[in-house]
């Protein structure tokens, strides 16, 4: 059985980022880059599924600049078997990412694609569903539990009002939510050891046609710091005065 996990290189989700002064992009000077946390959860889940079914082979793929190799190496260190880097400087939107991934899926024929529900840099929450649509596959988004059933997966997915459990036959696509698992910690030596695992670099299958494009990056209006109050009485008084209570 084969699992494909797309991983995106994103700015450290805990770093504070600002737009560049001219609004042409995001200022990333001095900011670290990481695997998108949701994709890291997807890699972890794939590795845990393999602990139950050792026949599983895990491939990770990233689309982007050469530096994405860093994140792919980390995924290999976590337990993925091989990596594909689709190397490009071009701008992609989630739809273009989904199309490039669809081409790879048709070539590699995985039984499952497991990926993050959203990239924490663009916060789009699109590529997984778009890829499932392109492949005409069943999809289960926002997974908080994944089990193998023999012919497919049983997935508990988070919903606006709680959760629901769905069953999908192979091949199928699952996107991960935060509570699915806690990824293992990988120390540097582990990453170095994973250097011997195969990482294939290739060009995109086609030049991307983007249908949306970010033209400007700005700061959100800042909420002014308010008043410190000294007691609950004072708080009740101001809230009543403003008609909030």
């Amino acid at each position: 059985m084969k699992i494909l996990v797309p991983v995106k290189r994103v700015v450290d989700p805990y770093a504070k980022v600002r737009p560049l002064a001219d609004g042409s992009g995001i200022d990333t000077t001095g900011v670290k880059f990481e695997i998108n946390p949701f994709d890291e959860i997807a890699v972890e889940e794939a590795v845990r599924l393999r602990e139950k079914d050792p026949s599983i082979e895990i491939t990770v793929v990233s689309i982007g600049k050469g530096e994405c190799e860093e994140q792919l190496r980390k995924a290999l260190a976590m337990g993925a078997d091989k990596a594909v880097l689709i190397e490009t400087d071009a701008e992609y939107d989630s739809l273009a990412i989904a199309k490039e991934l669809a081409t790879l899926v048709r070539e590699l024929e995985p039984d499952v694609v497991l990926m993050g529900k959203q990239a924490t840099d663009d916060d789009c929450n699109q590529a997984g569903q778009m890829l499932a649509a392109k492949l005409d596959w069943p999809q289960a988004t926002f997974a908080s539990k994944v089990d193998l059933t023999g012919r497919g997966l049983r997935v508990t997915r988070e919903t606006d009002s709680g959760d629901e459990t769905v069953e999908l036959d192979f091949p199928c696509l699952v996107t991960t939510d935060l509570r699915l698992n806690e990824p293992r910690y990988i120390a540097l030596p582990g990453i170095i050891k994973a250097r011997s695992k195969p990482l294939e670099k290739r060009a995109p299958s086609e030049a991307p046609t983007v249908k949306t494009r970010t033209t400007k990056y700005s700061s959100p209006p800042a909420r002014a710091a308010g008043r410190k109050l000294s007691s609950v009485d004072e708080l009740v008084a101001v809230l009543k005065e403003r008609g909030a209570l």
Partner: protein
Amino acid sequence: MSRLLIIAFEGAEAAQLAGFAKALGIPFDVLSLSGKVDLDLGAAKVFTSDLNELPLADAVSGSLSNFIQQNGPYTHIAGPSSMRGKDLLARLAGTLDAGMVTDVIAIESPTLFHRPMVAGSIIATVEVLSTPVVLTVRPAGFPAPARSGNSESGILSLSTMPKSQRVSVSARGGARPDLTQAKIIVTGGRPLKDAETFERILGGLADTLGGAVGATRAAVDSGIAPNELQVGQTGKIVAPDLYIAAGVSGSTQHMAGIKDSKIIVAINKDPDAPIFESADYGLVADLYDALPELQSKAKA
């Protein structure tokens, strides 16, 4: 000519999205996947689906896409920025091969939208380069329009093509207002000891105020609160009149979900907690003292 289709999951949602339609300023139709839509929202046509249960996204995106092609052309297709909204609309965008903008908060023109990214640290201006475009909308920025007129209405029979099976649903819900609709929200963070304490201290105050209860990811992860209460970048986006955050440090990811609140109150025992930088009113106090006191005095 520009035309918008609003996809709502229930009738009430359509009214909120009508505010967006008015702001966009183009003629629009409404399709509700369940429940009745008011006919005075300003829509040209209102369609209600004949399904008796909300379908899974993978089962219905094909027939939705057929409907859009037959009944169109639509230049814009918009739905709510909820989890079910993103689940279905992104699938639909894939089926239609359409570009998509999630979490629209403002409109510059019918092809230029604003949306937050990187946990709300950045506001992006996104240009749409082809039609149709699929949008998910955060209603806070778009007040519901005055009601008038009478839309044409019809029942839409949507066929589903099941690709996966729903085997069980656990909707926790309860008597409190929905987080995304609530006028008052009381949110707790990591320091709440356990689920029982969380419910007693925060639930008690929320019920007194007629509000909803929210939680940080830290509270959800430690099992103190159920996941559907999580507020923030990857949880619910809320916009109440009053947001009371107790024992919440004020991480970027949490603040991303509450920026549109009219009044933010922070109660935290650490005077240097980052949340005080963006709260309208801050109280340095132990939440175990302050919340019960607030509950008894708010009533008076």
